[in-house]
């Protein structure tokens, strides 16, 4: 795979094959299978306790799967000791060795590989240049800022040209501005190296921004694997719909269905939607609609859509979020341009909410949330 500039070595594919891990009666990872292509940036996304970190720890060799196999390239790593796997890991709190200088930290993986002094110095210089820390070789980690420590951890991980780099929420401890900046840098770095990256995060925005593909996990299971756009536009179940981006999830009953398209009775009126699966009239369902797809207009008798009352407008900069209360008490969020006419609607005003049918996704046959 040619990724253009200065590809030093290409990454290897990762194959997670039917992997499970149990702790007593708790199943942390349940039968997860996943193919990561060579050079791909894949995020494992999920709430805490979803099993994403356990999966990463198994790839690193710190945890043993109870079932299944882990392959990197053609090599079965399932029973290989963590120090013999040759894949790098970037830890959440960096895990820099505090008694060593930046250069000594980066030299560590080179020393364990028996790389000679001259080559070592060269590689350290390159790695430091790569993360723009050339001046800091002689500093101790405690003398660096959080962002700088993060870069050192990165340099230490890439210095031995690993084909796969595991990252465990590496930007979690940074403030928002710096995090966004580092996301871009990390992505560029990965492109240049051509290494395969498996990136654990609970931040869906981060996953969508950086990843080639995202694997969403919940309760130890892989619930959806897809391109960021796919996850956003076509979530496979209510959990993904709710977890990725902002989403209205409105409970209702299907009144008429034709294949995967349907009309559905919601709190406040009738609406249209399409489902990822065939639907049955009369079934309970939930409609997922993004706030930016909700169109609001002043209430008119007989207008199609959901009747409601505007309760609050929240200024968010470029967009304004409008909260609409439906007759049964359900709250509907709409996101509109701050300069649009809709943003000028006043609290208390009766409104009608509607949307294009292909933008609403109907989930039927899923248990409603407790």
């Amino acid at each position: 795979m040619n990724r253009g500039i200065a590809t030093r070595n290409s990454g290897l594919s990762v194959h997670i094959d039917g992997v499970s891990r149990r702790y007593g009666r708790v199943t942390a990872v349940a039968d997860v299978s996943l193919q990561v292509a060579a050079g791909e940036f894949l995020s494992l996304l999920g709430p805490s306790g979803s099993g994403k970190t356990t999966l990463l720890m198994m790839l690193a060799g710190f945890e043993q799967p109870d079932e299944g196999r882990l392959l990197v390239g053609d090599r079965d790593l399932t029973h290989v000791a963590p120090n013999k796997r040759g894949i790098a890991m970037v830890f959440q709190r960096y895990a820099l060795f505090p008694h060593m200088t930046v250069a000594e930290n980066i030299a560590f993986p080179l020393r364990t590989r028996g790389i000679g002094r001259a080559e070592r110095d060269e590689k350290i210089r390159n790695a430091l240049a790569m993360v723009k820390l050339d001046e800091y070789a002689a500093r101790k980690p405690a003398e660096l800022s959080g962002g700088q420590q993060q870069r050192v951890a990165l340099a230490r991980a890439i210095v031995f040209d690993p084909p796969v780099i595991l990252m465990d929420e590496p930007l979690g401890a940074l403030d928002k501005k710096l995090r966004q900046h580092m996301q871009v840098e990390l992505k560029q770095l990965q492109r240049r190296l051509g290494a395969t990256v498996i990136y654990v995060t609970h931040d869906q925005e981060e996953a969508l921004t950086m990843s080639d593909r995202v694997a969403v996990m919940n309760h130890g299971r892989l619930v959806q694997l897809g391109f960021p756009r796919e996850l956003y536009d076509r979530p496979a179940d209510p959990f993904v719909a709710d977890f990725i981006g902002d989403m209205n999830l409105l409970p209702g009953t299907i009144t008429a269905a034709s294949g995967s398209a349907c009309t559905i009775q919601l709190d406040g009126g009738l609406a249209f939607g399409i489902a990822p699966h065939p639907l049955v009239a009369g079934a309970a369902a939930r409609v997922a609609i993004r706030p930016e797809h909700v169109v609001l207009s002043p209430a008119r008798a007989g207008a199609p859509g959901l009747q409601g009352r505007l309760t609050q407008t929240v200024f968010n900069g470029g967009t304004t979020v409008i909260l609409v209360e439906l007759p049964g008490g359900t709250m509907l969020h709409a996101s509109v341009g701050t300069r649009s006419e809709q943003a000028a609607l006043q609290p208390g005003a009766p409104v009608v909410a509607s949307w294009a049918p292909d933008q609403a996704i109907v989930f039927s046959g899923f248990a409603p949330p407790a």
Partner: protein
Amino acid sequence: MTSRSIGEWAFRAACLLVLVFLMLPTLIIAPMSLSPDNYLHFPPPGLSLRWYRAFLFAPDWIDATLFSLQVAALTMVASVLIGTAGSVALVRGRLPGRQAIEALLLAPLIIPPIIVAIAVYLQFAPLGLTGTITGFVLIHTALAVPYVVLVVSAALQRLPPSLELAGLNLGASRLTCFRRIVLPLIAPAVLAGAVFAFLASFDETVVSFFISGTEHKTVTRKMFEDIEFNLSPVIAAASTLFVVATIALMVVANASRMASKPQKN
């Protein structure tokens, strides 16, 4: 404001009194050791270094002191090795019955020394271990290991496990991780543990009293004998020297424990 500061002053005064109460018996020894008289007096009737000379130039005192130092040094080495390895197993390992092992390790701190002494004497006498350096080092190590375990475990618990995981991930063996990452970071605690172990052995009196022989006796046993027979200020002189040495050692131990506290960044 005033009621609060009065309370604070009262509290400080109480603390000071407790400290004086604790320290006085030790402090009173120093002037008594300078007495020119043949008996222990306080306050001393004059000033002289006579009893220091008596201590430093008496072969039996020097022999006992050297023997104690030798036992303490060997005990220190043995208990640091055992205590550090044990701490790693307790803190990082997944041992079944970890708590039971921990309790057993720390038992010597809780069991009355006289009970240990009698038990050890009954075991050691038939084995011919009484009055031997091996016997002393064996039992003193058992008594000193808990100190090392306490100090070193605390340091290990402060060390994030991710450091060792990072070491493994970067290709180092477990042994290399320990040598290059863990040991340098817990070194101050290990050093403090070593000082405690040394002192635990050097100060140990009760067991030493039981298993000392005529040939090999510790300086603590020698002091006991001296008190029984003549109660001369040489005891005070010896004690003062040991107190000064102990304080010096404790300063070293504390300084290194301070250095081992994690740095704020």
